């Protein structure tokens, strides 16, 4: 696990999904968020749902970024968000997912809807970096206690 320290800005928790081994996406997202002034905890690849849950409770992040590119992101992401949202302390946390979520390279409107209905605040496509930045910049700052 990699983490960096900043001040007065809520932590961002970055994680891969349980079956996904890819890490360049995670390394890249970490650098980006740090450049945007965020403190990052990066759980790395193949994070089991229980680890993501435990880390979310431990770090109390202002944003959870789920990244998956191996083609199982829709299914792994759906299972994960149900686990996270079932915990009352994470009911209001901003949680987003992005990457290459299916195996066919197509944006599947039905899948996006199911992911948002299950609790993701946003589902980002492969190249949606501007939208992602806008979302991150709207995160409230928070005093470090």
């Amino acid at each position, binding site marked *: *696990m*990699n983490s960096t320290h900043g001040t007065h800005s809520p932590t961002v928790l970055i994680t891969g999904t*349980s*079956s*996904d*081994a890819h*890490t*360049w996406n*995670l*390394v*890249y997202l970490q*650098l*980006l968020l740090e*450049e945007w002034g965020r403190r990052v905890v*990066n759980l*790395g*690849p*193949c*994070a089991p749902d229980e680890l993501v849950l435990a880390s979310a409770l431990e770090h109390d992040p202002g944003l959870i970024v789920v990244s998956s590119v*191996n*083609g*199982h992101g829709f*299914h792994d992401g759906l299972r994960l968000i149900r686990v996270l949202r079932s915990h009352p302390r994470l009911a209001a946390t901003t949680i987003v997912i992005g990457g*290459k979520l*299916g*195996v*066919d*390279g*197509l944006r599947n409107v039905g899948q996006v809807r199911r992911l948002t209905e299950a609790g993701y605040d946003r589902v980002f496509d492969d190249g949606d970096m501007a939208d992602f930045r806008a979302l991150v910049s709207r995160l409230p700052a928070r005093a470090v206690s």
Partner: protein
Amino acid sequence: MTPVPFGDFVARAQTRGTLVVQPRMGFSDPARMREGLLRTRAADAVTAGTLTLDSYTRVGDLAAARRAVAEGVALNGYPICTHPLRTSRAVLEGLHDSAFPVQVRHGSAQPEHIFSALLALGLDASEGGPVSYCLPYGRTRLRDAVSSWRAGCELLASHGDGAAPHLESFGGCLLGQLCPPALLVAVSVLEGLFFVRHGLRSVSLSYAQQTHPRQDHEAVAALRRLAGELLPDVDWHVVLYAYMGVYPLSRGGALTLLEAAARLAVESGAARLIVKTAAEAHRIPTVSDNVEALETAARAAATATRRPERDAGGSEVYAEARTLVHTVLGLDDDIGRALLTAFRRGLLDVPYCLHPDNPGRARSFIDRDGRLRWADTGALPLSGAAVSAARKVTSADLLAALSHVQRAYDSGGTP
């Protein structure tokens, strides 16, 4: 017809001067998987078949694989431990014979369940390794991967008499990109030795095409030379992987990069090539994408000839790889323990790898001449090899380095 040993098939093709080409292909639907194998076999090329396994099977989450199969969900590979044995037998029926070996490709740090499943199907060729399928493939501890791979090798090696099970090291890939070639060569050689110490008599060593054709030639030459020095008395060959990093988006760029890989394979003396398709940057390739890639690669290979080996001993890659290999071998008689000690002390260190057992001090960069070099060697025994880039890498720098090859080929050039 009885199946041909994987190593023999490749050796025979190489003697005839033909490159064996092979896909990375896997679908969860058995009918589609069979069609893929049939069309790989029928392609206008000398081919070996592949069953690439899905991510649930790789990480050992067989419950998730079962659920997906029950619900008809499309996976990113063939769930070999989940489909009933008779289903998988039917996939292979009449295909896997003396003219067509089939290899199982997976990506599992703990492959025992996969090896049992492939042996039950009458297959005996696979790939990976205790380092190359651990550090880049998740969070399994390295010591657990080493003990699983020991057991896995012994399981494979003890199988059948007269058979010649084959294992390929995936050490030539690691994270797919931005790893200086000497480390790729060293890990491949060390894993090949690990396989042999644990009973395998037929192995292959890998190298993935990187950013600089000349450096790639030196790397394959270094790999062949070290294999020759350290693997006498066993059957071995070199397998080249078409570029494993961020792939060109355009069809033209993707196929041109593949053709360069095919020529590099022939010119450098590799015996087998694992192809990438024009769909690589976008989605899981279809059967047709794979056939196109196999035939494109075979055509390009046919236009190339083996280049006389220049003095491999003089290259930077050979010198660094040799130092890494011998430093590790000197740590312990048991290669598994030597690998663990090496990573603990930072004598092996994969740039940008997040795994908890990777030291994470070494850094790489693409030099102005296009070669991959060390920006920081951390505790690697390569003093003086670092060309200090000595500045913090930004997200934009990282993305630029990751897409160096993609950009070059998408704009119609080469790196």
